[in-house]
């Protein structure tokens, strides 16, 4: 049914101890241990200095992913469609606003308010990259990676436009963290194109899968996988890092899985 083929030209993955794709892929190949260490604060290069200083951890995570994708590809950022996917958006800002509203003065910061929209990262990115094409910001709770990938795949196939997929979530502060206990901050990005390019890493098709979903065999990586919606991508990234042309089932809610069938590198692909 869904045999359309899209191509991956760049990958980014960020989690504690894994500051970029080159570290993450070495760990996923088993060349280095998965040792969690705190991420250094990221300074988005494409934001003007004022915005860079004020950018929230959530916007920094999204820019960290998007900038790695752009830096490791030959695509012009201004020409790309964008899919930003996040379960929770910026809960630190939502909490600041809710705290302000619990005071009798009700002084909501205007900056907090306009940064509280779910498309804040997408909006800042469009400004930074001067990207005027279609951009969307979606949420699918814990399925935000799988659904984001499908939205990017649909954008690529139907609009025939190369698309930046950026999936990210940052844990909420307490007390909200108790209601939404994400274990780690993480982000994943794929630059998806309609045709194979000289820089293509892999091709893929999407379909409904079955079973419980592919797990990561390393216990430390498996524990990352279930600690953040973006990290649900790890079984896919593990197959790519190990150069395995295989099918990966991304676990989703409701006993569903998304099957991603991968062809690595120069392998012939047929639409």
């Amino acid at each position, binding site marked *: 049914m869904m045999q359309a083929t899209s191509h991956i030209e760049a990958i980014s993955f960020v989690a504690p101890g894994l500051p970029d794709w080159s570290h993450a892929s070495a760990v996923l190949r088993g060349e280095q241990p998965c040792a969690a260490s705190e991420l250094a604060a990221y300074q988005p290069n494409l934001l003007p200095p004022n915005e860079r200083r004020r950018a929230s951890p959530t916007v920094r995570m999204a820019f960290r992913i998007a900038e790695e994708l752009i830096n490791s590809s030959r695509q012009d950022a201004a020409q790309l469609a964008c899919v930003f996917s996040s379960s929770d958006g910026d809960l630190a800002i939502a909490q600041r606003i809710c*705290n302000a*509203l*619990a005071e009798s003065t009700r002084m909501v910061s205007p900056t907090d308010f*306009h940064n509280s929209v779910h498309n804040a990262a997408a*909006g800042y990115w469009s400004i930074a990259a001067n990207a005027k*094409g279609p951009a*969307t910001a979606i949420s699918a*709770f814990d399925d935000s990676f799988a659904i984001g990938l499908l939205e990017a*795949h*649909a954008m690529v196939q139907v609009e025939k436009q190369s698309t930046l997929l950026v999936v990210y979530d940052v844990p909420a502060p307490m007390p909200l963290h108790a209601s939404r206990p994400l274990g780690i901050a993480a982000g994943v990005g794929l630059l998806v194109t309609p045709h194979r390019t000289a820089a293509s890493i892999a091709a893929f098709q999407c379909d409904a899968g079955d079973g419980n979903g592919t797990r990561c065999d390393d216990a430390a990586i498996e524990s990352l996988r279930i600690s953040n919606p973006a990290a649900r991508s790890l079984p896919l990234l593990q197959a790519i890092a190990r150069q395995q042309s295989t099918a990966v089932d991304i676990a989703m809610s409701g006993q569903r899985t998304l099957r991603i069938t991968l062809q690595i590198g120069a392998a012939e692909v047929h639409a």
Partner: protein
Amino acid sequence: MSLLRITSYTLTSALGHGRDAHRDALVNAATGLRRHAFDDCAIDCWMGEVAGLDATLPSSLKQFECRNHRLAWLGLQQDDFMHCVARLREKYHAARIGVFMGTSTAGIHSAELAYRQARAQNSSSLPDWFDYRHTQNLYSVAGFVRQALQVSGHSLVISTACSSSAKVFAAAYRSMQLGLCDAAIVGGVDSLCLTTLHGFNSLQLVSSDICRPADADRRGISIGEAAGFAIVEKPEASADGLPYALLGYGESGDAHHMSSPDPQGSGAALAMQLALTRAALEPDAIDYINLHGTGTLANDAAEDKGVITVFGSHTPCSSTKGWTGHTLGAAGIVEAGIAMLCIEHGLLPQSLNTLQKDAQLQANVLLHPQRKTVTRVMSNSFGFGGSNCSLLFGHVNASMTRATS
């Protein structure tokens, strides 16, 4: 060429529950805006509040209990929509029916109340009744609709501020093209909350006067709430519902500023032009433009420039936010519904509450209603972050009778 058949739709706003209430209010020039008090908000402003949100949710949906889902539930009860979805489930498998919802704040009012209670009780934790996943989390809107309608296909929430529930049509079209689902429920739900009232007020965008789009003395928005839903099927599907179609859509980014539009309206113009191009229609094929028209100085001026760039100063247009208020993440679906009402009833609504048109605005803003045959309507929705979406609706025959003129 039509992109999607629209075989059913419904809308609930301050104008009332369902399509007939909206038609009557449009024909009778009856605004839904009042000087309400919401919660204990002390801002001096008009609001578009939906009546009838006191009833709790049915027990099967109890975990979703909050104002936003009460509004969604009320909206789903109108215009025989539940029965239309039941018939859709017989025609397609429930797992092949997608759900694409737009919202800007979902059930954040529940979080506001939880933080207030924690503060009043001097507690460092939020109360036990607060359920983040089923109220505040944006995806809860799609989760609620899937459970309420017993469909289980591909689903997501789009949250791009005030363009959210316009963009759901484009997302549903793409997903159906790719084969992720065979039919879809699209829609949007946004409800009154302190975050948006105080947030827009902090940006000095809330008018103390009633919303007067395109008026020389306009002073900002009146915030409203609404729920709207539509059933979309493939154009070739044998469909016996309503005779409407999505003819085109255009999505663009301003790449200008987080909370104010590009003053040249170039992002808005791009969205409108993309919608026309996709529909293979010239501007003169459009009978009416339902403007985003929030009533802020900046929006109405920038949108006017965009309209002039693409359409010139001839095409009749107006904003209907003087009726409903700005329903934010639900504005796209509400105004999609109004576009279809305009086609059904041959009605071009006036810019309600506009006393004196701003002389700086060049577009053909209607100060009086017109009755005429209406075949195709463009609807604009623009949001924070420079997120623009223009939709083009028509009578299903309109897509066959006229290609590029």
